[in-house]
C-alpha cells in the first residue's frame, strides 16, 4: 500500500538558518506533490506544488525539490523566522484527467527559535 513518511516528527532550528524537511514515499508514483502549512487548531494552507517532470520550484524563501528516482521531496525554508513555526504537510496525487486523490503525510512540526 502507499506510504508517505515525513522526517522526524519535530525539527528545531535557530532563526536565520535554513530548515530542510523531507517527504519520502513508497509504492506510489505521484504526478504531483504539494506542500501545505498547518498552524495549531487551523486548517492546512497551500504553499507550493511541484510536478513529476520538475526538479525544483521556488517561491520567495521557499524551495521544493522532487526526485522521482529517490521517491523523495525536500522542502527548504531559507532565512527562517519564528513566524515560520508550524506543521508542514506534504501531499501526493496521481496525474490524469480523472480524480487525483490527495494523500497527506503526517507532517513535520517545525520550531524556529529566536
Amino acid at each position, binding site marked *: 500500500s502507499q506510504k*508517505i513518511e515525513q522526517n522526524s*516528527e519535530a525539527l528545531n532550528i535557530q532563526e536565520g538558518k535554513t530548515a530542510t524537511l523531507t517527504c519520502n514515499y513508497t509504492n506510489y508514483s*505521484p*504526478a*504531483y506533490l*504539494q506542500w501545505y502549512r498547518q498552524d495549531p*487548531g*487551523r*486548517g*492546512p*494552507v*497551500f504553499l507550493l*506544488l511541484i*510536478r513529476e517532470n520538475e526538479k525544483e520550484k521556488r517561491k520567495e524563501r521557499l524551495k521544493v525539490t522532487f526526485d522521482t528516482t529517490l521517491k523523495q521531496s525536500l522542502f527548504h525554508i531559507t532565512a527562517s523566522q519564528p513566524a515560520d513555526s508550524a506543521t508542514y*504537510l506534504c501531499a501526493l*496525487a*496521481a*496525474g*490524469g*484527467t*480523472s*480524480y*487525483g*486523490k*490527495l*494523500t*497527506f*503525510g*503526517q*507532517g513535520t512540526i517545525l520550531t524556529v527559535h529566536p
Partner: protein
Amino acid sequence: DAMVIQNPRYQVTQFGKPVTLSCSQTLNHNVMYWYQQKSSQAPKLLFHYYDKDFNNEADTPDNFQSRRPNTSFCFLDIRSPGLGDAAMYLCATSRGQQGQETQYFGPGTRLLVL
C-alpha cells in the same frame, strides 16, 4: 474574507448522539471534501463531492454520511458518534478534482465525544 467557513468551531456531543457539522464556501468550487484529522496524524479523506456526485472512501465507516444540498454548502453527519470519532474535521474545496488542484481548507471543527 473567509472562503471556506466551518461551523461550529468546537462541538461537544454525547456518545451515540447524532451530530452534524457544516461547511460553506464562497469560492464557487466544484469539489468539496471532508477530512478527519487526529492529533499528530495526517488528514484522512472521508469522502468528496464533485458537484452533486458523491464519492465515498472505501474505509470510511457507515457511521459517517454527507449531504451537499447546493454548491455552497456541505454537511457531515455522524449518526452515532463513538469515543474514537473525537477529532478535528476539516472541510476543503477545489476547483476541479485532478491531482494538480490546490485545496482550500476551512478552519476545522474540533469534535469532542463525552
